[in-house]
């Protein structure tokens, strides 16, 4: 083609997707695009609708209404094409427990008409970490190793889009960091990644995110823009008596909301004329000592709570 296509077709295109289970509306009118080569995060708690969305996009579940296109193919009409082109790691471990590590990988390669040797380069970084255990049955692997095997199996046919449903749930912070650096490397190879997580701190590792709750997107944007649009002044406050401090801050008339955040409390403030000195005096009157108050930048978790309370 002659003309330069500035916006190539998105890897994933959803329009007005809805799905109910009986009376429960799992997804309500979801629309979004994921661009080629993007890491797109679906971030929200259990029961928000993340898995339903993943199952629709991987052609395992039919939506009640709306359309979805994955890598140029319709999830209903061209479901066979899509199954050849995507990799899917479901939230629950779903490889063959009684096959060994190598047998599982070989099985998936064969199903997709390829071989381990043919695509070894793509999975090398990940698979090498579990290769010393390749004769061990998958059911006997630790959580972190199962996850690496599942990822290897999902990549062995060189998919153009990778779907990862809560790959880091229940995983410790150090292993989670390792996992995300693996995703960064896959992105560099041009693979589009849709990943869901309940951990808000993983948002900053995505190019763009959608915050989801009760089947609805609260917001779709880059993590940086979501933080910019927070719209309230945010304070971090601490004193010698943190549980009393929570109560006293909530009773203050200028407080819009107040939550514990690690060793500080985060307070959103109503009034633009607010002065730190006034709050300090109020807390001193309440008997607090060693009071520290500062304005801070919100994190994604602050934004999520703010948006979900609207």
């Amino acid at each position, binding site marked *: 083609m002659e003309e330069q296509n500035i916006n190539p077709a998105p890897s994933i295109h959803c329009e007005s997707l809805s799905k109910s289970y009986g009376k429960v509306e799992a997804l309500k009118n979801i629309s979004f695009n994921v661009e080629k080569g993007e890491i797109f995060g679906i971030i929200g708690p259990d029961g928000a609708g993340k898995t339903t969305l993943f199952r629709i996009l991987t052609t395992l579940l039919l939506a009640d209404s709306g359309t979805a296109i994955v890598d140029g193919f319709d999830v209903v009409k061209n479901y066979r094409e899509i199954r050849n082109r995507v990799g899917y790691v479901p939230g629950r471990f779903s490889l063959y427990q009684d096959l060994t590590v190598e047998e599982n990988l070989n099985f998936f390669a064969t199903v997709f008409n390829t071989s381990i040797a043919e695509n070894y380069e793509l999975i090398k970084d990940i698979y090498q970490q579990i290769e010393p255990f390749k004769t061990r049955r998958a059911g006997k692997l*630790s959580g972190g190793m199962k996850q690496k095997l599942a990822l290897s199996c999902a990549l062995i046919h060189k998919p153009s889009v990778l779907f990862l449903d809560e790959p880091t749930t229940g995983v410790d912070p150090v292993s989670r*960091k390792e996992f995300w650096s693996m995703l960064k490397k896959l992105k560099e190879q041009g693979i589009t990644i849709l990943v869901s997580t309940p951990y808000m701190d993983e948002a900053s590792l995505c190019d763009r995110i959608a915050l989801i709750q009760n089947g609805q997107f609260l917001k779709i944007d880059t993590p940086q823009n979501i933080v910019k649009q927070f719209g309230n002044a945010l304070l971090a406050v601490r004193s010698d008596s943190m549980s009393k401090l929570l109560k006293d801050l909530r009773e203050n008339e200028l407080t819009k909301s107040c939550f514990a955040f*690690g060793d500080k409390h985060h307070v959103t403030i109503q009034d633009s004329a607010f002065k730190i000195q006034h709050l300090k005096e109020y807390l001193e009157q309440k008997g607090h000592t060693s009071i520290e108050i500062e304005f801070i930048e919100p994190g994604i978790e602050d934004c*999520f709570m703010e948006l979900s309370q609207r």
Partner: protein
Amino acid sequence: MEKVIVVENLTKKFGNFTAVDHISFEVERGEIFGFLGANGAGKTTAMRMLCGLSIPTSGKGFVAGFDIHTQSEQVKKNIGYMSQKFALSEDLKVWENIRLFAGIYGVPEKKIALKTDELLKRLGFESERDTLVKSLPLGWKQKLAFSVAIFHEPKVVFLDEPTGGVDPATRRQFWELIYQAADRGITVFVTTHYMDEAEYCDRVSIMVDGRIDALDSPKNLKNEFNANNMDEVFHQLARKAKRVDR
């Protein structure tokens, strides 16, 4: 101060593999004790021994005053337990769940009825009394599961990743329930992968390769490791792990 958990050189081996390697610590009445570690560090094995579900290979352990070697049935009666995986019966109503678990722990019939009303009121769940648990939002389930786990007023409650997957606001409300329980004198032994929650504990232990490599208040740990938050402390310790098998 009353010691509710006393552990001395507690060890568990599976064949040649030492899952828990001579750990020692004490937890006081009403304390919130965070039990952290990477996947595969030995947390679950240690916790199973403390709950009377697994016999130690060597070392001593007393929970709620009972010996985990010889009095494991007494241990089980005097503790509460809750995890995300094991919580409530989905196909029973709210009040039926309370009655089931209270009955299992041997709370007298009359007391169950009385305390059920009290509990539902405290949680603001009065109107959900006859609701099937499976139709409750996740956050409500977690709060109910915790309340059921301490319904028989145990000396200590074990919480295994109680807040995994819960939305941020509910996660914090859950911790407020933990504080209330601790104020009533119930000792809380909790594992979590959320490092901000480690900051809410009175003291925190961090397991690496079966051993406890650090144990102190969050404040002291941050000083000791010259770290801004518990996440940094955790990373410094967990990176030293030699076990490749995680």
